[in-house]
């Protein structure tokens, strides 16, 4: 009797073990099956290309012949000694500075007015401000190519209203105006996105906190400065982050409007990379430029997340 009981006990234990093992096996299969498609893609089109770029960047290579002209870090030295590339970095920084000083405050002002000012037609205005974000960058670029056109473009025509003797400005070929002109287009295209994020942030702040500050005697400016904006800290930090990254990733608008000209005065990092790397098939040099862009993005992102967002990469 005892033996039988022991036997059944062992049998059920074995059964339980195989069940457990099978469940474990099923779980592993599920995890692999779910992760595989995504990670095959990420490996093929993200990780391997980055690794390849690092490798190619140490060669002088036009993409056709064999990779046999190893030149070490010369491509990197060349990049940093190239005035056009340094100019491109400088222009990207200028776009970044203008975005932080003008574009984001404009987005915040409009978000505050729409959400806190309780305007009618809030949704209508939101749609108008946000729509350019949904347009293709091609659409934005061609619309503004016309607006800036020196012969009969909308901007010069508009300025003629105030000054009939106005001779007109060639906004996109004038060395002094070209970068600002491009910045205006980028603002037109992107500020609605930041406004949307601010509107979402504002809706999450309870009005009671603001009201109690008012009851305590704070005026509207103080409420904004000491209550509303501090509570929007996370959203603001996020938009600053996205805005800075975005400034270094512009291509299409600039490419259509100026192609980086006149005289490289509106060259940005990515237009430079496209022109000197891909168009001229200097693939070794272009790879070095890509690695520099990667490194800048990565260092900035990690630094910003640690210092400002107080988040680590995982979660």
């Amino acid at each position, binding site marked *: 009797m005892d033996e039988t009981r022991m036997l059944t006990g062992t049998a059920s234990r074995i059964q339980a073990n195989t069940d457990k093992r099978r469940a474990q096996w099923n*779980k592993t299969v*599920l995890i692999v*099956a*779910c*992760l595989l*498609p*995504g*990670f095959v*893609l*990420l490996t*093929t*089109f*993200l990780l391997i*290309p980055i690794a*390849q*770029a690092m490798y190619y960047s140490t060669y002088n290579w036009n*993409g056709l012949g064999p990779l046999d002209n190893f030149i070490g870090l010369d491509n990197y030295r060349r990049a940093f000694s190239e005035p056009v590339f340094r100019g491109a970095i400088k222009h990207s920084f200028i776009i970044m500075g203008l975005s932080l000083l003008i574009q984001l405050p404009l987005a915040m002002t*409009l978000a505050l*007015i729409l959400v806190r*000012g*309780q*305007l009618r037609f809030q949704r209508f*205005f939101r*749609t*108008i*401000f946000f*729509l350019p974000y*949904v*347009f*293709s*960058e*091609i*659409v934005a670029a*061609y*619309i*503004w190519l*016309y*607006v800036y056109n020196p012969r*009969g473009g*909308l901007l010069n025509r508009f300025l003629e209203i105030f000054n009939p003797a106005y001779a007109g400005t060639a906004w996109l070929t004038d060395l002094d105006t070209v970068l600002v002109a491009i910045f205006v287009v980028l603002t*037109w295209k992107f500020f609605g996105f930041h406004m*949307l*994020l601010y509107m*979402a*942030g504002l*809706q999450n702040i309870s009005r009671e906190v603001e009201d109690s500050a008012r009851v305590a005697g704070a005026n509207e400016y103080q409420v904004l400065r000491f209550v509303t904006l501090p509570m929007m800290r996370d959203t603001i930090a996020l938009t600053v982050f996205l805005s800075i*990254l975005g400034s*270094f990733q512009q*291509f299409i608008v600039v490419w259509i409007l100026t192609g980086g000209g006149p005289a490289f005065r509106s060259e940005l990092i990515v237009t430079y*990379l*496209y022109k000197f790397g*891909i168009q001229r098939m200097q*693939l070794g040099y*272009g*790879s070095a430029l*890509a690695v520099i862009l990667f490194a800048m*993005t*990565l260092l900035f992102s990690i630094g910003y997340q640690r210092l400002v967002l107080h988040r680590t*990469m*995982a979660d």
Partner: protein
Amino acid sequence: MTSISAPKMTFSRFLMYLFVIVVALLMFSPVVVVILGSIRTTGEFMSNPVALPKTGIKWENYTDILTKPEFWRSVGNSLRITLTTTFLVILAAAPLAAIFARVSFKGRSVLFNILSIGLLFPLVVAILPVFLQIRNLNLINSFWGVILPLVTFSLPGSTVILIGFFRAIPAELEDASYIDGCTTFGFFRHVLFPLARPAIAAIATLTVVNAWNEYFLSLVVLGDSKKWPLTLGIMQFQGQYGTEWARVMAYITLLIIPAVIFYLLAERYIVTGLTGGELKG
């Protein structure tokens, strides 16, 4: 919101309206002028941009474009790239997000970090390395050379949006589904994915916008003008000598109209996707 009665018209509110209206006018006047320009001739348009057509509406700008087979081929190419990309993004991102959100396993944080790298580098930044890889894989001039990188670079953002939604689904539902005899896969299929339908719609919508507007990758990968999407196709309608502005305006208008319609239809999903579901319509 509801606790406060309709606000009175004060001077500061008047200023707010004024500011918002001026900004709205400045923003939208170029669009209106472009649309008006598309039904006039280039000459009329350049001599006086803000006017209604004097010599009758010029539909020629549109018929010129709409009767060209190149245009419809571009429409077909854009649709093909957009729909395939969106389908594949959903197919790859939903299981990925489900695993990251609900299953703990070894190597999770390493894999999540890889995914995060993709968040940092949009396609624009990686364009040259991606171009070289597409060349190595012999995908130059192939739609897959555009679609697969587009899917890859849409994955991280889409996955992160979905993870947020999947995490919000209560663990009790998961336990209940196991008690009912579901496997983890069954739980994904019958509980998680159906409940997350709005979030999946949100990532689908954002991917559609992104893929439809894509330009750079096609410029680099698709040399053959027969394969060009609408964004590149505009080059075929600019005119050989000097810009045919009126026709360009018509082309632009043809791109704007579907974008506006799509936005108005999908606004809820676009706004949800971008703000993580925080902004109410």
